[in-house]
């Protein structure tokens, strides 16, 4: 069951791949470099090249099975296609085809794929980061570049609380169902139900926050300017090759766009 979840979902798995071994902050910076490039590209071909590059990187260097990539990206690809179709009609240009009150323009046909690739590649790169990076390692690497450990701890704590909250949502929903407040009702009723769920979950969550804060204070959390970690991570300058290659590829694509 757990294996199946790991195969299908958006969870970190240590596959001992090249991407697994990279320094977390390098991977985070890589996602930003990819995103910046996609905001600069003016041609859908550049977006397509990046899409294929990230996909190959995920499969070859990250050892992520294609089925898992497809399973996690289905919604994104669907939204990307919707966004592309919206641009077909919304962007001004020479009319090519009239569909009732809507007109497909030549510029829309060109811009649509640009935005499809912008959305899908940014998300795919983020997924690669999630699939190959332990969040604890990411937090430790952030503190090493000067992020206050109390701040990094807040992020880590939020992630630690996530499964508890998801379980709490299920428990509150089940409790309401037992009392006859079914979730398979109309939209208005569902909205009211969610209002109740959120308030209950908030109150329970804040109660846990109070006890957690007291426990941390009892252990003198925040007393020293730095803290130690059970598992330390180390930066290898060779990891920067990923960023250098991506910058070279992105710059090359931008130059080609300008020349052609």
């Amino acid at each position, binding site marked *: 069951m757990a294996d199946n979840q790991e195969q299908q979902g958006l969870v970190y798995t240590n596959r001992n791949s090249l991407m697994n071994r990279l320094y977390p902050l390098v991977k985070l910076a890589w996602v930003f470099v990819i995103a910046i490039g996609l905001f600069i590209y003016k041609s859908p071909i550049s977006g397509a090249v990046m899409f294929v590059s990230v996909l190959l990187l995920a499969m070859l260097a990250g050892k992520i099975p294609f089925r898992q990539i497809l399973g996690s990206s289905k919604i994104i690809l669907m939204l990307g296609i919707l966004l592309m179709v919206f641009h077909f009609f919304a962007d001004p240009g020479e009319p090519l085809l009239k569909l009732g009150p809507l007109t497909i323009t030549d510029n829309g046909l060109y811009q649509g794929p640009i935005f499809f690739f912008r*959305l899908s590649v940014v998300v795919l790169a983020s997924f690669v980061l999630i699939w190959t990076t332990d969040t604890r390692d990411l937090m430790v690497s952030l503190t090493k570049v000067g992020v206050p450990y109390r701040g990094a701890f807040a992020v880590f704590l939020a992630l630690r609380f*996530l499964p508890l909250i998801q379980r709490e949502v299920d428990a509150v929903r089940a409790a309401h169902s037992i009392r006859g407040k079914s979730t398979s009702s109309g939209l208005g009723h569902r909205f009211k139900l969610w209002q109740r769920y959120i308030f209950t979950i908030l109150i329970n969550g804040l109660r846990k926050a109070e006890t957690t804060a007291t426990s941390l204070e009892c252990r003198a959390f925040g007393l020293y300017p730095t803290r130690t970690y059970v598992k330390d991570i180390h930066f290898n300058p060779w990891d920067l090759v990923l960023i250098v290659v991506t910058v070279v590829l992105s710059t090359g694509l931008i130059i080609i766009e300008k020349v052609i």
Partner: protein
Amino acid sequence: MAEKKSGWNFNYTTRDIVIIAVIAAITGVVNTGVGNLWYLANTSLGPLGGALLQGAFMWAYILAMWLIRKPGAALIVGIIEAVTEILLGNAAGIGTLGWGLTQGLAIEAVMAISNYQKFDMLTAILAGAAASQFGTLWTSIFYGWDPAYSKDVWMAVPINLISGAILSGLLGYLLAKAISRTGLIRSAGR
């Protein structure tokens, strides 16, 4: 809950940090669900569709600011909440951080104008409306809505403002007030 409290106090206690983390985690779960509805509306109907639901994302930023009452609380919740959304599979990936930043900054801007002293309903409504519109700035950049030729971007402004004022500002304020009355948060309003 006191309506006024002065303010440029950056001394975050451990309790503040944990409350921020919990609120961010809860909002991350809720907003990931609401986000899927929003993406559907935004990508198929454009800026007008997105504007209807845009205000539904920042109630927790207001809640955190009203409970903690320190500069940066809304921005920090925005960033951490965005990180949790990314990890939960938000359909914008790392682009989610853009909303966390812009929406959080908008609330901080409104609170800074009030010198972090006014914690009344009107300020919450203004902060919610501003956050909603600031978030839409990032949406326009990310989704390529160009205000120069897309009328919808301008027509969406009043819808955004109303949506943010009610779904984030008013809702966040009422939630903060209700939670404060329960006495659960010892630091609330202090």
